[in-house]
């Protein structure tokens, strides 16, 4: 799930000085779970922008999916056409998809942070930093790359303090956890599997994944 937070409302209002007619679009998936772009937050945004003319509000299941955005926005096609701008309570990918499917100015109302694992509402943890060359099968299912502040792929590094990480001394070094978990599972040999440097030629933005049919 994509973790987002709300931008400062005054900053958003500052971008709307020449935009009277608005459509507010929420995300019923990730941003809804983050309580940044669910229907409640869409309603709150409409109230906060009451000195503008809010032509329509809508929650789209996955606004980052252009197929779904195009389909759902057809329901409010006239309002979108008339609007001076859309307010996107979505991640950055969603905001750009809305721009691409409507060709309207889109105001991004959220900041997008990371791919998060949800423990419960309000507790989101980064567990994968999408390196594109996954080593999870060698590390007993713990992403050492994301949990290690130095992104060490063959750890631990020399800064381990006992079993703790020097950068966050209250936390275990993830490579200590990998070592212990592999041992528990009788997979010790994997600890020394060599993981080469990330091949950045496959891993620089903007990334694309195109199926060959």
């Amino acid at each position, binding site marked *: 799930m994509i973790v987002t937070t709300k931008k400062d409302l005054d900053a958003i209002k500052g971008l709307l000085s020449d935009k009277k007619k608005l459509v507010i679009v929420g995300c019923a998936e990730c941003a809804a779970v983050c309580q940044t772009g669910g229907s409640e937050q869409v309603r709150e945004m409409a109230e906060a922008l009451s000195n503008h003319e809010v032509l329509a509000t809508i929650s789209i299941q996955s606004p980052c999916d252009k197929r779904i955005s195009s389909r759902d926005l057809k329901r409010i096609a006239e309002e979108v056409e008339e609007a001076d701008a859309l307010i996107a309570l979505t991640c950055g990918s969603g905001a750009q998809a809305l721009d691409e499917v409507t060709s309207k100015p889109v105001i991004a109302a959220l900041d997008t942070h990371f791919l998060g694992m949800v423990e419960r509402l309000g507790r989101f943890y980064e567990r994968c930093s999408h390196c594109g060359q996954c080593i999870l099968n060698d590390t007993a299912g713990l992403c050492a790359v994301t949990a290690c502040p130095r992104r060490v*792929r063959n*750890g631990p590094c020399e800064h381990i303090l006992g079993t703790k990480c020097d950068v966050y001394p209250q936390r275990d070094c993830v490579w200590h956890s990998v070592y212990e978990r592999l041992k528990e599972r009788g997979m010790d040999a994997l600890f020394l599997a060599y993981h080469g440097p990330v091949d950045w030629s496959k891993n620089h933005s903007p990334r694309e994944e195109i199926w060959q049919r």
Partner: protein
Amino acid sequence: MAEMISGPVLYAPRLETLETLSALKNLCEAHGNILAGEYGDLSPLAFYHELKNLGCETLLVEILLKNKNRGLVESYLVTASSLGFSGAVLAMGSFDKSPGMPMPVYDLDTAQALRLALDMRKAGRLREDFRIGVRAASGSGAAETRARYYITEGADFIVLPPGGPVPGLEGHTITLKEAGPAA
């Protein structure tokens, strides 16, 4: 494999000014071996000749992996070897979290940099007698397993912070006389 360094090594983590550099002379004469650290404002690579003139028997240079991509690590290694340093110690480098400072970035970890350096030596890009060491740790199963791995892979030595040795690796371990932080 290059020869093991005998005796303790003095670690000078920071070369800040030319004065601090010449102040090392007495220490160098007393200790014989020196590891010139990369934490100060002066780069040990740029001051090789001044360091050499201190009269140390073994002159090692620290190569921090933070904020260097693999191309720059290669360049540091070739430069150090060509200048005449006795060898290099590869280390991850401290992680500065001070407000307003950029977070360090890392391209290679120590195991990857070690493999790179060993391959370069094998290919003749580094002198045959250019020693390659790595910073390691002790005190946990994970750290000691990794330290043993470095030696098995071909590192000439490991450098440990003061404290416990890694059992079985005593003959491959460099003791820093005046241990500055591994950080």
